[in-house]
Every structure is written in C-alpha cells, then in structure tokens.
C-alpha cells in the first residue's frame, strides 16, 4: 500500500468494476477496494449465508432451501437488453469469455387484472389478447409506422416530426387507447412514469426500436441474463482490470477520504494506512450516504422498495416460464410509478432446483412502501419467503472535477442496465476529460 496509484476505486459494484476495467486497459494504475468480503457491492448476487447475514443476521437459512453454494440471489432486479449499451461494452471488452448468457423467457404486461405477453411486432400485436379488434388494427398501423420510419425519407413520416411532435400527438394520430399507450410506453419503451407523453417523441421511438430489435435478436424476450447471477458481471470486469495490472483488495474497511486544505483528494485511509492516488471513484456508500456529519457529497433523490421472494413454482399465467419480466403500468394500479417483477430460477444457476426467485420493486411514493408493491406480490401465487429492502437512491452533489472525487449513482428502479452505462460514460468523461470510445481489444486466446 506504499505505492501511489492513478485511481483508487471504492466499491465493486458493476459501475465501479466497468470503470476500473476500462481504466486499467487504458494503462492507468488502479487500486480497487471493497469493504465487503465479496464482489458486487449493491449489485452483488449473494449466496444464502450472505443473504441471511444481510437481512436476518440472527437466523440461519432453512435446510430445505438446499445448498448454500447453489444460490446467487441478485440484490438489484435488472436484466440486460440484448441490443443495449451494456451488451456493447461486454462484447468490446471481451469479458464475454468469462460469462455465459441465457435468454429471459418472457416479457409480460399487466392490464385490467390479467397478464399478457408484450407484443413486439405488428404480427404479435394482431394476435395479442391485450386489444380489441379495432384497436389491433390501429396498433398494427402504429407499429408499421415505427418500423418503416427512415429519417431521410419524408414519405415514411406521415406528417410526424419525431423531434418536435410529442408522443401524445403520435398516439392521437393513430387513435390508440390509454391501455394500449400504457403497454407501449411502459412495457416496450420502459418508461417508469407518464412524463414522456408530453415530450418530443424521438426518445420514445428510439426505445421502442431498441425493444423490438432486442426482441428480434434471440426471440423470446428482449432480455438476456448471465448464468450464476448478475454478480458475475462486476467479477468479469474486475478480472479484466486485474489482467491489466489492477490491484484488488476485498474485506477492507475504509475509514477516511483524505483531502488537502483546498478539499482536493489526497488518499484513502484503510486499517490505519493511507494510500495515495490522483483520483478516487466510488459508490455513494463510501462518501457519506446514509451517515450523519462529515462533508455532504451525495444527496438522496428517492427510495426504491424491493422484495426478494422465493417461490416453489413459476409465476401463474406466464406459461410456466423459467424466467420473466412482468410490468404493471402505473395507471393500471393508480400509481405514479410502475411496479416491476423480475423472475429467474434454477435454469440460470441462481438457486436450488424447483425454486424460483422473483423480485418485486417500485419507486417509493408513500410511507408504507411494502403496501405499494402488494399488486405485484399478489401475482406471484403463494410466497415461500420474502426479504424486503427499502433502498435510498443517491446521486453525487458535484461533478468531482474540482476535488478529484468522482461518485457514481445508486442502482435505480429501471429494469435494465442502460442507466448504469450512462453513469459509466458520465463518470468516465469527468475522470478522463474524454468521451468513452469503445475499442475492440486484441484477442489473446491462442488457438
């Protein structure tokens, strides 16, 4: 610890691990530490022992759940969008060689008390039980419009300007019912609330196309998932960093962030020793999140409630899918924010055979968050056991350019990793002063 580093990274969540992997590849000397004795921070996947240590420190897991090592329970319910930004990073950094992926088997949406498959093409829309006969025709026209859109060809625009006209205008042009708007905006464009409707339609168009192209890539759903849980993702980037000279230390309590008289970063103190570096990157928990006193470097901008549920059966109404996402659009249950259900199972090597792990989550709107997810919980059928967590979401108060302290954001309520990649790109730009450009690495595997 007597050396000086270019960057010290605190916390081994996915955001921090992608950053230290990319920084190491760039030739930066990186020291990466975590207070826990496992990788992943808030985006870890825990075995039963770790899960109980976190939620029920005075209990031991029941033996009927099976072997400890068979479990990798995600703390954050997210899936990877097949054609999304995280996939690009995984491919460009070649960490895919450490990982294996499976499709998520189904994507469902709740409407009028029932769950149905999310249609992703005009063909599927026509068959979907989500809509009546006339609405199907209107939806078909809407999807045809989206899929034939070419920026350079005004004849495909049907009088719409995506950059000027609101999504409301587009919906009205095709005469889509509010319920149809719900599944398009929430289950396909994956908006958490309805704020997008009055804004220009372009981002919504982009998100629907991302959904449909991801869906077309592997067929069953727009999502893929790493075997052995999401915790494999930070581990794979940590290995990338280590291979390029990054130093890893787990189980290291961090006592202080040391700054000079001007408040600029000097080093990090762990176990009485201070290690110096030019810059520090870390998750909010290392910079005063949830603590009293000290310099305020992060702000709470809301809370997410997540209930990790163990089931002995697939979720009813999902055609016995071994994995799925179910979205309950806010309007359907009179909320401002959607409720999400993400389920994985034994086939993803994250739990014992015949166990299904479903996480129900939403952004907290009231003082009784557990009641808010009740509509989601009620879709699961009998719940064997449930671990409820209410997590504040933190965001840094400054960009870090003035004091060389760069703080990442908490994992939000979205169902995928697109905002995590945005955070990576944002922190990268603040740390290096340059845009993140992904270059294909030389392949070192020999034949």
């Amino acid at each position, binding site marked *: 610890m007597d050396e000086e580093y270019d960057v010290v990274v605190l916390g081994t969540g996915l955001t921090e691990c992608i950053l230290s992997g990319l920084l190491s590849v760039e030739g930066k000397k990186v020291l990466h530490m975590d207070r826990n*004795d496992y*990788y992943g921070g808030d985006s870890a996947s825990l075995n039963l022992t770790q899960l109980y240590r976190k939620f029920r420190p005075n209990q031991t897991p029941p033996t009927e759940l099976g072997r400890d*090592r068979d479990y990798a329970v995600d703390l954050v319910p997210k899936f990877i969008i*097949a*054609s999304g930004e995280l*996939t690009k990073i*995984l*491919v460009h950094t*070649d960490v*895919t*060689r*450490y990982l*294996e*992926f*499976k*499709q998520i088997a189904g994507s469902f949406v709740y409407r009028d008390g029932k769950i149905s498959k999310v249609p*992703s*093409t005009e*063909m*599927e829309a026509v068959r979907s039980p989500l809509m009546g006969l006339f609405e199907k025709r209107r939806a078909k026209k809407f999807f045809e419009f989206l*899929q*034939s859109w070419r920026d350079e060809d005004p004849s495909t625009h049907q009088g719409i300007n995506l950059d000027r006209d609101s999504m409301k205008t587009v919906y009205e042009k095709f005469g889509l019912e509010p319920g149809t708007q719900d599944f398009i905006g929430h289950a396909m464009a994956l908006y958490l609330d309805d704020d997008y409707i009055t804004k220009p339609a372009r981002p919504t168009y982009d998100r629907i*196309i991302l959904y*449909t*192209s991801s*869906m*077309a*890539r*592997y*067929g069953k759903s727009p999502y*893929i998932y790493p*075997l*052995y849980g999401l915790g*494999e993702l930070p*581990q*794979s980037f*940590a*290995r*990338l960093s*280590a*291979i*390029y*000279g990054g*130093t*890893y*230390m*787990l*189980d*290291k309590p961090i006592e202080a962030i040391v700054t000079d008289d001007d408040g600029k970063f000097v080093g990090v103190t762990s176990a009485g020793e201070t290690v110096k570096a030019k810059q520090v990157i870390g998750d909010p928990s290392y910079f005063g999140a949830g603590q009293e006193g000290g310099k305020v470097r992060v702000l709470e901008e809301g809370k997410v409630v997540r209930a990790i549920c163990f089931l002995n059966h697939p979720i009813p109404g999902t055609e016995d899918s071994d994995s799925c996402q179910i979205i309950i659009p806010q309007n359907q249950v009179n909320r401002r924010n959607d409720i999400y259900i993400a389920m994985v199972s034994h086939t993803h090597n994250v739990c014992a055979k015949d166990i299904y792990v479903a996480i129900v989550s939403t952004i907290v709107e009231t003082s009784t968050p557990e009641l808010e997810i009740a509509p989601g919980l009620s879709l699961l059928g009998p719940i064997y056991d449930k671990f409820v967590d209410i997590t504040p979401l933190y965001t840094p108060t400054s960009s870090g350019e003035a004091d060389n302290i760069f703080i990442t954001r908490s994992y939000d309520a979205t169902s995928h990793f697109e905002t995590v990649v945005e955070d990576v790109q944002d922190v990268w730009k603040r740390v290096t002063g340059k845009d993140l450009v992904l270059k294909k690495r030389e392949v*070192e*595997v*020999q*034949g």
Partner: protein
Amino acid sequence: MSKQFQFKLVLLGESAVGKSSLVLRFVKDQFDDYRESTIGAAFLTQTVTLSDQTTVKFEIWDTAGQERYKSLAPMYYRNANCAVVVYDITQSASLEKARTWIRELQRQADPSIVIALCGNKLDLSARRQVTQEEAKKYADEEGLMWTETSAKTGEGVTEIFTAIAQKLPLTAPGATRAGAGRTGGPSARAGVDLNKQSTTPGQPDACNC
C-alpha cells in the same frame, strides 16, 4: 477416431511461487528470470495428446494477481475441471498457503474437480525447505495428485499436465467437446452468443411466431 475434449484449469498458490512461469513453460516452452507479475492474458490454451490419440485442450486461467489480497472471485473457480495448486519448495510457508487454497477449492469448487499439488523451483533444491515426504504425505491424505517441477529447466512440467489430462473423466458431462466452450467461438451450449450479428430491426425472428 480421435476425440477432442476441452477443460478449464485454474492455477492457485501464493504470489511468486511460479504459477505464471509454469504455464509459460507449458504453453510456450519459455522462461523469464525476471518475470513481472502477470499482465495481459485472460487465459492461455494448450493441447495435450494422449496415447490413444485423444486430445485434451486446457483453457488455463491465471489468477491475474487477485489471490494476493484474498480477492479471487467465485467466478474463477466456477466450472473448473482441474486445478494446479503451486508451492515453492524453498519456502515452507508457501505449502501452508497451498493447503489453504486446497481447502478453499474443496469448499467452493465442483466436488469432482481434479487437484494437483505442485512443488515448483526444483532447480533450487539446494535451498529446499519442503521435503518430498511431507508434501506427498499431505497429497495422499487429501487424495491429490502430487509432483515437483522446475519452470526454469522445464523438468516435470509437461508431465504434470499430461497426468492431469489422463486423470480427467473424458466421458463425464463436465468435459466439453473442443470448440463448444467459450474460447471456441459461438457457444454450442444452451446459452446465447452475444457476438452474433443482430438481425435487421423490424424483421420478426424465425422462432418468434
């Protein structure tokens, strides 16, 4: 007809016992006296041909230095078919460390994993601190393969990897046909291949009907 199998082999052991040197000797038949700590290789591969023309391809994972501060990820042991746990015969403390790694493997890795205990730096036997008897006795008690090697002279190196290849169950489900693993391009397992080109947006996939 010749058969090909592919296995994941992980290296374990204290820093500076010669893990990377051992692999470098086995894979490239090279040795470097002043080798820096491992940088830049995700894993190396090398093929061993057995007497019956069966070929065994090892996908060899080095620790990338993550063993130094108790920071090896569970991913490292994941699906490992075999492990070479290395100690330095001139440092008795390194055998103690090897025992710790073997306990860790027995706890974390697949129960069918083939473990070889390997005393390296045989060229420095004048400074030997670990006797052959002591190491062999421990290996026998734990049911491990055992040998001594010198990455510097090459003594015993190919032999240990060949011995492991012979001991691996070539019919067990753990053995992957060469080319079906992660190194061999598109995965033939149940998973999805991220490197596959995206189909044109808007064209429904064939299996999407």
